């Protein structure tokens, strides 16, 4: 798995397009949000900014890159090549997704540290970590499922739009309007409960015991995504 991960890391840094769209763009967007934190805090809260930057990295840095990478590796038969070795399917997928996952986690951590330093830190760090980790797992699962519907890296530009834009839209909706109204709908949408968890972790004011159940909808999306991926994911291009 580590050999595959190392190979992926080399490719990420060698492919300028992936580097720019998946890693530099989310950082640039996040930098804008942090720079304008007073404006966005007035609109929602600091927790809202934290949630939006987390989903910006999660959607573009992690989810889109995962889908594009898997579609590309399948299209050029690299997945089949890897399956010609003793490596297990789980090992292959883990190796392929490990670098982008680690990079996304590093990005989110660094951005949130900068946000905390500039505008004030979170109230409950462990809760924030739980929110970030559950979001990362959810985006990975959705990436696997979407890769099953994606024929090529070019096709990924279309197939990733609903989830990536949807997750950021949900984060903004929940971050700005809260969950006092349409509570169930907002929490069940992908990213809704994770956003609320970030809001609670950053802004405080909600008991931890009341926040922890918010992990359930996010993890349910992981179950749904993995179930979809197991049905949809293909290792070879359609002939």
């Amino acid at each position, binding site marked *: 798995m580590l050999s595959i991960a190392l*190979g992926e890391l080399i490719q990420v840094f060698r492919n300028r397009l992936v580097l720019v769209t998946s890693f530099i763009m989310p950082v640039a967007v996040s930098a804008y949000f942090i720079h304008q934190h007073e404006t966005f805090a007035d609109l929602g809260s600091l927790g809202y900014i934290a949630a939006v930057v987390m989903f910006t990295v999660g959607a573009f840095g992690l989810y889109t890159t995962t889908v594009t990478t898997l579609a590309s590796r399948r299209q050029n038969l690299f997945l089949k090549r890897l399956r010609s070795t003793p490596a297990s399917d789980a090992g292959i997928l883990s190796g392929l997704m490990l670098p982008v996952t680690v990079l996304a986690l590093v990005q989110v951590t660094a951005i949130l540290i900068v946000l905390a330093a500039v505008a004030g830190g979170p109230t409950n760090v462990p809760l924030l970590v739980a929110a970030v980790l559950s979001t990362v797992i959810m985006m990975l699962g959705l990436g696997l499922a979407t890769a099953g519907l994606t024929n090529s890296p070019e096709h990924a530009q279309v197939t990733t739009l609903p989830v990536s834009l949807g997750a950021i839209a949900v984060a903004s909706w929940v971050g700005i309007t809260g969950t006092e109204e349409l509570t169930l709908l907002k929490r069940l949408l992908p990213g809704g409960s994770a956003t609320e968890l970030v809001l609670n972790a950053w802004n405080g004011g909600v008991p931890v015991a009341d926040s922890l159940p918010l992990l359930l909808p996010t993890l349910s999306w992981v179950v749904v995504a993995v179930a979809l991926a197991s049905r949809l994911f293909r290792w070879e291009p359609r002939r």
Partner: protein
Amino acid sequence: MTSTPVIDVERLNLSYGDFHAVKDLSFQVRKGELYALLGTNGAGKTSTLETVEGHRTATSGTVRVFGQSPRDRRAVRPRMGIMLQESGFSPDLTVRESVRLIGKLSQRRDRVERVLGIVDLTHKAGTQVSQLSGGEKRRLDFATAVYGKPELIFLDEPTTGLDIQSRDALWDAVDKLREDGSTIVLTTHYLEEAQQRADRIGLMHKGAFHQEGTVSELTRTLPAAIRFSLPAPAPALPLQATRESDGTFLIQTFDLPKDLYILLGWAHDNAVELRELQAGPTRLDDVFRSIGS
């Protein structure tokens, strides 16, 4: 050579929806053999090969490689090298990185520089795969397949796109691997390669074996041909012959030396010139052309 089957296929069936791609196929490949799986387009040889490699699941029947299911990658793959029909390398990795990655995953021990030397790619070690020509990619594919001298090697169209020097180098490497005891399964459209190299051939047509055996077993089922033209008028021929549309005569024979001897004796005795005389044993091409006719 022992008779231990490295590959044992028993009544293999493969279906894609309503299409029955492989029908009740059974064959064995013994240790040290070079077994060529040939066939017409759509005959089912790629489906068969991919099932034996473990890339596909049989609809019914059994496939054993080293006595185990080829789907058990951890048990079987360290002992086999696979040269795919299409490249399957990441374009952003270099040649050296590609061989190192696949080599490491193969769990076999070897030196990257050694296998690159076999396929004359040492000078391209630092080149990204996207910069390689089609022939160089085939050689890279071969290099990863033979990394660590596996016991069983699948070569799927290995020489397609290779120049003659590269082909010779590849077959030299295959010969050396066979001297070390490796078993080879080959598919190719270059029939002369199969004719020269294969110990046995499975000739597929419409999902089943049309014929299976050694080259001589396959070719002896068809008559050899003697072709020539004659100046007119000429005395009656000593053998049964047919006149072809281009004016040449054709004698078909299962005993080429004897009938050729008779024909040459007749020409000598009658002072007849056999113009454009061509005589040769039945080739694999002829067997191939006879499929479906």
